[in-house]
């Protein structure tokens, strides 16, 4: 076999092993006759460390030896590879969100009146943590219930310029019609200016983005 540069063999070993390797372990890879001495190996490690400049990996020495690791600057995008698939929001959550959007400012009690069931506090917390709703005030009645409203993030997420972009109740009554419009929205280029009177396609097109992801 043709002789490879020691530096390359060390890189190959560290990447193949994926865990720290001591200088001793690295030397074990070689037959006794060809075994580099410690100084040679340390020189190869130094050369490798230098070559890592500008690359997304770096050579570090840890307790059990040397290791090539992905630089921490890449933690943010790369960590997402391990994230579990997100679940889905419950029907109750979506209804609560929709009521807050259409009827804001609204109290929990008013939401309960319309939905006919108690509002799960977990839902309100989830929506707040998501940044979609917030407390905008209190109704001055006994108990001073919180008044909930939607946020700018809510509008941004759903690609709405304002609540006016939401279909009117009348339009909602004919959901089949709405469905057609929403599907049509996916085909329509988003960049094309849409007349103010027909905001649904834009909203739909943007909303389609996350769904496809």
């Amino acid at each position, binding site marked *: 076999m043709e002789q490879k540069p020691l530096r390359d063999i060390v890189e*190959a070993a560290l*990447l*193949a*092993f994926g*865990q720290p390797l001591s200088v001793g372990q690295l030397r074990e890879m070689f037959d006794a006759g060809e075994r580099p001495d410690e100084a040679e190996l340390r020189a190869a490690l130094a050369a490798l460390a230098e070559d890592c400049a500008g690359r997304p*990996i770096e050579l570090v020495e840890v307790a059990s030896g040397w*290791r090539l*690791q*992905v630089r*921490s600057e890449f*933690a943010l995008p*790369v*960590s*997402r590879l391990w*994230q*579990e698939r*997100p*679940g889905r929001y419950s*029907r109750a959550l*979506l*209804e609560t*969100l*929709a009521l807050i*959007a*259409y*009827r*804001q*400012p609204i109290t929990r009690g008013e939401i309960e009146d319309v*939905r*006919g069931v108690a509002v799960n506090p977990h839902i309100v917390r989830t929506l707040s943590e998501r940044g979609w709703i*917030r*407390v*905008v005030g*209190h109704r*001055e009645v006994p108990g*001073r219930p919180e008044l909930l409203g*939607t*946020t700018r*993030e809510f509008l941004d*997420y*759903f*690609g*709405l310029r*304002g*609540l*006016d972009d*939401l*279909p*009117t*109740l009348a339009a*909602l*009554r004919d*959901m089949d019609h709405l469905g057609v419009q929403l599907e049509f929205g996916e085909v329509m280029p988003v960049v094309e200016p849409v007349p103010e009177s027909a905001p649904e396609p834009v*909203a*739909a097109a943007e*909303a*389609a983005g*996350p*769904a496809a*992801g």
Partner: protein
Amino acid sequence: MNGPDELAVTAHDALASIPPQQAEMPFAIVEGEPVTEIPRDLYIPPQALEVFLEAFEGPLDLLLYMIRRQNLDILDIPIADITRQYMEYIQLMQELDLELAGEYLLMAAMLAEIKSRMLLPRSQEAGLAEEADPRAELVRRLQEYERFKLAAENLDQIPRLERDLHQAHAELAGRRVVRLLPEVTLQEMLLAFKDVVQRATMFAHLHVAREALSVRQRMSEVLVALAGGGLVEFVRLFRAEEGRMGVTVTFVALLELLREGLIEAVQAEPYAPVHLRRVTPPPDAPGVDELTVTTVI
């Protein structure tokens, strides 16, 4: 997969690598002794035979070896000759009390049958209905087996992980746990709203009014603007750049908030600037009157 199997593979490799004519090269190593005898002449040391047979993957493999060894055309096997050799192997194995897999005996029977059919006089009306060659089935099976024997050898040649290739892997420094939030489409939310409105209609006290939604949005915004609890000048809630429509929406929102008792308007004297503020809590209300507003538009 180690132990005897490993030995068998070695013996077979040794066999396969010898060109047929070079009989002096060992075809197997048995207990350290090179075995140079080729099975063709059927003198094989007993231990060698054992190793030799273990090297075969069954009767088809053995037959194929015999055919290849003698450079015979697989499509025109001298069946009598091959049968005789095969039977001699079988006999020897039985004499050596080797455990003989049933498949070997089955093949012996098949060969004998082919041989007897080959001896029958062939049909005189040549050209008419061609009689199937009695060997056809055997030839088909041998060829088919050989294809996969080759395929297995080729598969073994493909560079594979662990032996030839190693997955490159590096720890990620400062790995974080990222939780993905569920995605919602606008349509999902609208469908939910449609359902809830329909259900509410059945409850018969539907009070989902038909106000322009921008008024509702503005009502929330005004409440946030008044979150500090102090007085805010009426005119400061209007934005000239929004035009007449914007002014109207804000004004309607303020009226609605006043009607709902959420804000109050204060005027020090006639014609003085109008100020607005949130309605102060009744004295018996819980002490905290601050809004828990965390996000500001």
